[in-house]
C-alpha cells in the first residue's frame, strides 16, 4: 500500500510540474481559432476568384503597437502605414509637400495665420470631413500627445465647412512640413467608439482585424474619397527579426518589406529575377560628435581627415550612402563640402602637434598614448561604424577604444564623457533643415557639452527659425553646417538608404518615399 501511495505521490508531483498547463489550457483553445480565421482570409482569395482575381498583399512591418489611436504616441505612424489614416499634406518621393486632405493653403501677411482649404473628402463611414472635425482632431492630438505640447499655444478654428485656420503666436515657417507628421491624422471623432481598435478615418483601407502588438488585416475602404484602392486588402505581419523577414520572403509567405539589412540585401542580389530591390536615400543620419573640450584642434582635425565615409559605406554594402553633411546632397540645404580623407595629412597634423609614434605604433605625447574613446550603442549599424572607425584610426597610429552603452541619451550624451560619440537620428523630417539644426547645434542642445556651439551659431539658428524665404533658409542652413565641418566638431558618416524588397510586380508600398511612416496607398498593387 505504501508503495502505491509513493507512486501516486510521484505522479502527483509530475502533475504539479505541469500545473501551469492549467492556465495554458483555456488559452490553448483561443489561439486555435486564429488559424481558422487567417486561413479564412487566405482561402477567400481563391474561393471568390470567379469574378476577378482578388488582390491581397502580405507585407512584413518592423513595429506593432497596442492601439490604432493615431493621435497617441507613435501609433499614427502605423495607422498610416496600414493605409487607414491620412493627413492634410503628404511628402512625395522628391521630398516636396503635396496636398492630400487639404486642397491648398495660404499664410497671412504677418505669417501668423495659416488658412487651409479642405478637399472634398469623407470618412470610411461616408461622413464628410469638415473643418470643424479637423480642428477638433488637432486639439485632441495636442491634448493627448506630449510631443505636441508646444502646439498648445496655437489656435485651430473652422472658418466655414471646408476652411480651417491655424493661428500661431510666432512665425512658424515649417507649418506645412509639420502637418505631414502622421500624428496629424483626421479621424471621425463622433462616430468612432473604440479608438484603440476601430478608428474611423479617411484612408484607402479599413481595419478588418487588429491584434494589439501583433498582425493586422485591412480591406479596401469602399467609401474612399480619392479613387479606389487597387488592392482588395492586405495582411501586415509584425516581424521585428531580420532573419525571420528574409526567410519568410524566401519561403514565399510575404510579398514585400522595407528596411532590408545588408546581409539580406546581399542574398536578394543573387537572385534578381525573384526579388526586386529598391534603394533610395533615406533620412536617418549616422554621425559622430568630437568632444572639442577634451581634444586639441589638431586631433579633431586628424580624426575628420582619417574617417573615410566612402570606405565605411562600402562595408555596409548599400544600406547607407556616404554623407557630406546631414542632408541629402541634392537638397538646396545640403550644399556643404568636406575635405577628402587624407591619412598622411592627419599624421602630419599630429606630428606637428608634438605627437610621436611609440614602440607599439601608436601616437604619444610626453609618454602618454593618445587614446580616444568611441561611444556608441547597439542600433542602426553604429557598432559596425565603431569597429570600422577604430580600425581606420589604428591605421594612422591612433588608439581607439570602443565603449558601448545601452542608453546613450542617459549615458554618454548626457554626461559628455566621450572623445567621439556616435549617434543616429532622423535628419530631415520633410524638406526643411531646421529640425535637425535645432537638435544638433543649439547651446542648450544635447551636444553642447562637446564644445561646438557658439553665440554666432546660436544667432544663425535663431535667424533660421523665423526665416520665411526658402532660399534664405537653405543659405543659412548651409552656413551653419559648413561651420560644424570646418571646426571639426561633427563628422557626418552616412545617410541610411531605405532598402525595400518585393516580388516582381509588387509596387506602390511607398518604397520610393524616404520616410518610414508611409506604407499602403490606393496605388499599392501586386501586379
Amino acid at each position, binding site marked *: 500500500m505504501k508503495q502505491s501511495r509513493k507512486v501516486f505521490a510521484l505522479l502527483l508531483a509530475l502533475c504539479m510540474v*505541469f500545473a501551469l498547463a492549467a492556465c495554458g489550457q483555456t488559452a*490553448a483553445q483561443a*489561439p486555435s481559432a486564429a488559424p481558422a480565421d487567417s486561413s479564412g482570409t487566405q482561402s477567400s482569395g481563391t474561393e471568390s476568384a470567379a469574378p476577378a482575381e482578388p488582390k491581397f498583399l502580405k507585407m512584413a512591418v518592423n513595429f506593432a503597437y*497596442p*492601439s490604432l489611436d493615431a493621435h497617441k504616441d507613435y501609433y499614427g505612424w502605423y495607422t498610416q502605414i496600414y493605409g487607414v489614416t491620412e493627413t492634410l499634406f503628404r511628402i512625395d518621393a522628391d521630398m516636396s509637400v503635396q496636398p492630400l486632405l487639404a486642397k491648398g493653403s495660404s499664410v497671412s501677411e504677418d505669417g501668423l495665420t495659416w488658412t487651409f482649404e479642405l478637399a472634398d473628402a469623407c470618412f470610411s463611414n461616408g461622413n464628410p470631413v469638415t473643418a470643424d472635425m479637423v480642428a477638433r482632431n488637432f486639439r485632441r492630438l495636442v491634448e493627448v500627445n506630449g510631443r505636441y505640447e508646444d502646439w498648445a499655444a496655437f489656435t485651430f478654428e473652422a472658418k466655414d465647412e471646408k476652411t480651417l485656420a491655424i493661428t500661431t503666436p510666432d512665425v512658424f515657417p515649417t507649418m506645412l512640413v509639420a502637418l505631414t507628421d502622421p500624428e496629424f491624422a483626421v479621424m471621425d471623432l463622433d462616430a468612432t467608439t473604440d479608438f484603440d481598435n476601430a478608428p474611423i478615418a479617411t484612408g484607402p483601407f479599413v481595419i478588418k482585424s487588429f491584434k*494589439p502588438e*501583433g498582425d493586422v488585416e485591412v480591406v479596401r475602404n469602399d467609401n474612399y474619397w480619392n479613387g479606389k484602392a487597387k488592392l482588395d486588402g492586405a495582411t501586415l505581419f509584425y516581424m521585428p527579426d531580420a532573419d*525571420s523577414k528574409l526567410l519568410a520572403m524566401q519561403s514565399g509567405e510575404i510579398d514585400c518589406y522595407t528596411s532590408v539589412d545588408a546581409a539580406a540585401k546581399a542574398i536578394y542580389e543573387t537572385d534578381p529575377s525573384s526579388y526586386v530591390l529598391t534603394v533610395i536615400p533615406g533620412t536617418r543620419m549616422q554621425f559622430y560628435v568630437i568632444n572639442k573640450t577634451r581634444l586639441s584642434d589638431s586631433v579633431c582635425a586628424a580624426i575628420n581627415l582619417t574617417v573615410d565615409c566612402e570606405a565605411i559605406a562600402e562595408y555596409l554594402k548599400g544600406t547607407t550612402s556616404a554623407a557630406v553633411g546631414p542632408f541629402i546632397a541634392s537638397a538646396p540645404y545640403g550644399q556643404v563640402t568636406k575635405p577628402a580623407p587624407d591619412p598622411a595629412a592627419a599624421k602630419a597634423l599630429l606630428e606637428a602637434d608634438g605627437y610621436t609614434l611609440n614602440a607599439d605604433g601608436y601616437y604619444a605625447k610626453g609618454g602618454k598614448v593618445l587614446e580616444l574613446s568611441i561611444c556608441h550603442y547597439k542600433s542602426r549599424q553604429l557598432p559596425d561604424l565603431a569597429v570600422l572607425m577604430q580600425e581606420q584610426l589604428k591605421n594612422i597610429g591612433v588608439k581607439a577604444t570602443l565603449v558601448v552603452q545601452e*542608453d546613450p541619451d542617459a549615458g554618454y550624451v548626457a554626461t559628455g564623457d566621450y572623445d567621439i560619440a556616435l549617434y543616429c537620428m532622423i535628419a530631415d523630417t520633410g524638406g526643411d533643415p531646421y529640425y535637425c539644426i535645432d537638435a544638433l547645434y543649439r547651446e542648450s542642445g544635447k551636444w553642447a557639452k562637446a564644445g561646438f556651439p557658439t553665440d554666432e551659431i546660436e544667432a544663425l539658428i535663431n535667424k533660421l527659425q523665423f526665416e520665411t524665404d526658402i532660399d534664405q533658409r537653405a543659405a543659412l542652413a548651409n552656413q551653419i553646417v559648413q561651420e560644424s565641418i570646418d571646426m571639426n566638431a561633427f563628422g557626418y558618416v552616412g545617410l541610411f538608404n531605405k532598402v525595400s524588397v518585393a516580388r516582381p510586380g509588387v509596387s506602390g508600398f511607398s518604397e520610393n518615399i524616404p520616410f518610414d511612416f508611409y506604407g499602403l496607398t490606393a496605388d499599392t498593387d501586386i501586379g
Partner: protein
Amino acid sequence: MAGYIGRRLLHLVGIMIAVSFLTFLLMYLAPGDAAAKKLNAQGVAVSEEIIEKTRESMGLNRPFLVQYGDWALHALQGDLGNSYKDDFPVAGKLARGLRYTAILAVTSLALAFAVALPLAILTALHKDSLLDDITRLFSFAGNSLPNFLISVLLMYFLCVKAHLLPLTASESVKGLVMPCLALSIPICGRFIRQFRAEILEQLGRPYVSGSMLRGVKQRYILGNVLHNSSISILTIVGLSIGTLLGGSVVIETIFRWPGLGKLAMDAITNRDYPVIQGFVLFTSTVYVVINLLIDICYSWVDPRLRKPGGRS
C-alpha cells in the same frame, strides 16, 4: 504539514517583497530616462522642456521610496499600473503574455521530458554503447548552440527548404511547433545529461546489485531506481519551468510568439518600469510557488524529510 506550508507561504511573501524592492532599486539606479525613451521611440528628437514635463506627469520626479510604495500599495489591490509606453494596464499585458508563454513552456517542457526520460534510462542502462554516444553528441550540440542559431536553422530547413510549416503562423497551433522545437532542443539536451547522471548514480548503489544478486526482476529494480531518482529529476524539471515561464526573449521574438519574454525585453529597452515591475513580481511568484511545490513533493515522496531536523 499544514504548519510547514503556512511557514513557506510566509517566506514566499517575504521573497516577493525583497525581489520587487531590489528590482525597483536596480532599475532606479540604472541609467535611462523613461520619459525620454517614451518620446524618442522612433528617433525623433524632443526638447528638454517637453521631456521634463513628461517626466513630471509620469511621476518620475518623486523620491524613490514614494514611487515604490505607491506601486506596492496598488499592486496589493491587483493594480500593477499602466505601461509608460502605451498607457495600457500592465496586468492585462502580463496575463496575455503569460497565456502564450505558458502554452509554449508547457509544450516544450513536456516534449523535452518525454524525449529525455526514455533516452536517459536507455543510455544509463547501456552505458558507453553506440546509442549512448549518439545521444551524447546530440545533447552536447543541442546544449552548446545558441538558441537563435537553432531557430534560424530550423526555419531555414523546415520552412524555406521543405515548406513544411508556415513562418507567418504566429499565435496558432502551427505557429507553436517551431518555437516549441527550438526551445525544447537545448532543454532536452540538458535533461538527458542530468537524468542519465542521476539514474547512473542510483544504479551504482548497493541496493541495485543486491537486488540483482537476489534475482529481483529488472523491471522492479528499474522502478526503484526511478523512484529514488525522482527527487533530483523533480528539482531539475522544476528549476527549468521557472526559467521557461520567464519566457525566451530570442525565440519569442524570432517566431513572433507574443509571450512574456518579449514583453519583458521590450519593457527593459523602453525603461517601462511598471511592466518590468509586474514582470518581476510575476516571475518571482512563479519561482517561489514552484519551489514550494517541489519541496512539498520532496517531503511527500520521502517522508523522512518531514521528521524534525530533517525538514527544511
